[in-house]
């Protein structure tokens, strides 16, 4: 059941989140990836539009969250630092709480870049590992097919020496074929990182989202997944330091929150970071002056979960979204 507290957070105009894709290009070619990398680096005009929107949205805000996604956001590091620095300073000036976060593969997140991001209050990072080096390097490879594990591990160990607060969620992908590898990785994490409360492990069941092109990865069913997590973590009790997607409760996805918008590298406005090739995700456009042209008839289906407070639909509105044809008819009806 969705709590009133979660509802209030999701429906508050005092909070605003932008999820920005500074580029949809990536330096990785994960074998299960669903993205097509067709849209390149954000133009200066869109960068200016985002900064104008942030500035215009400050009055009345209590909290602004800036979340970076991609592609790999640090392929466009200059865009991240440019907008991130602006948001950091604008929030300071307006006395608005601010948090910056990145979903990054961390290959370009060198200790120096990490420090630059902490300087502008980007303290939350989600970094994915697919297992120990053996599995990780099979599936999370550079575009030139080279493995990436050792570089990421070196970075993770280096972040430990940072004295400032931060939060790194290590998203550990689990499927039928990599359970032993994730168990080995988890043992390394426990020994080297998880004793530092700034690092957390988050298990995620994964399947191959790339269609036929990826290395086959066999999805675990619910019972097998629970059993695998017990085996890997050695505990039945997943707490906030070791959590998993099966422990999500009272969760309203950002895509179902009216106070959260996705800005794509080409200035299109969307809701969901997964449905990037889905026309139902095109709900508006950002203009150069920072104003938004939102098609309310297209954005409302993302809020359908509020009709009956469905935990499943609010947790992932994409699953119950009307088919594209129906959505076009709906948009025309409301136009």
């Amino acid at each position, binding site marked *: *059941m969705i709590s*009133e*507290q*979660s*509802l209030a*957070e*999701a*429906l*508050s*105009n*005092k*909070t*605003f*989140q932008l999820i920005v894709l500074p580029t949809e290009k990536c330096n990785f070619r994960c074998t299960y990836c669903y993205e097509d990398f067709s849209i390149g680096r954000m133009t200066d005009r869109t960068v200016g539009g985002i900064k104008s*929107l942030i500035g*215009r*949205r400050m009055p009345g805000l*209590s*909290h602004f*969250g800036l*979340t970076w996604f991609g592609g790999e956001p640090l392929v466009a590091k200059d865009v991240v630092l440019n907008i991130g620095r602006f948001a950091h300073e604008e929030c300071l000036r307006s*006395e*608005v*709480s601010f*948090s910056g*976060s990145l979903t990054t593969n961390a290959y370009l997140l060198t200790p120096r870049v990490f420090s630059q991001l902490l300087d502008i209050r980007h*303290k*939350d990072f989600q970094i994915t590992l697919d297992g120990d080096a053996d599995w990780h390097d099979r599936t999370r490879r550079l575009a030139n097919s080279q493995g990436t594990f050792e570089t990421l591990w070196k970075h993770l160990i280096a972040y430990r020496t940072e004295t400032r*607060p931060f*939060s790194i*969620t290590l998203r550990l992908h689990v499927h039928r074929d990599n359970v032993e590898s994730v168990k080995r990785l988890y043992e390394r994490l426990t020994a080297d990182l998880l004793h530092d*409360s*700034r690092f*957390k492990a*988050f298990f995620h069941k994964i399947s191959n989202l790339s269609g036929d092109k990826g290395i086959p990865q066999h999805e675990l069913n619910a019972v097998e997944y629970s059993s695998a997590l017990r085996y890997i973590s050695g505990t039945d009790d997943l707490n*906030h330091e070791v*959590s998993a997607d099966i*422990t*999500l409760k*009272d*969760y309203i*996805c*950002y895509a179902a929150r*009216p*106070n*959260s918008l996705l800005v794509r590298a080409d200035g299109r406005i969307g809701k969901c970071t997964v449905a990037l090739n889905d026309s139902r995700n095109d709900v508006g456009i950002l203009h150069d002056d*920072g*104003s*938004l*042209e*939102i098609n*309310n008839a297209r*954005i*409302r*289906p993302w*809020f359908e979960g*509020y*009709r*009956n*407070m469905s935990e499943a639909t609010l947790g992932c509105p994409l699953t119950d979204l009307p088919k594209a044809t129906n959505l076009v008819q709906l948009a025309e009806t409301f136009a």
Partner: protein
Amino acid sequence: MKNGFDPALIAMDSYAHFTINDSTMHDLLSTLQHPQIVPKGNPTCNGGCTNTTDCSGTQNVGCTNTYICFAPGSSDPELNK
């Protein structure tokens, strides 16, 4: 707890402010959002927030996936920075 409302009652303007034209929901949000519950930028709390809804700390009654924790009754603006 309200059962729900028609999403057609949500409308967004050109600077991402939205309105919910539903009086019961308006009352609920007014009650919950101010002044009893305000965002709290407690580093310990933020450190405990992940993309789940859990949150550590005795003062915290909730956490979103934007890493915000909330403390009942707090009005110290320093906590919001």
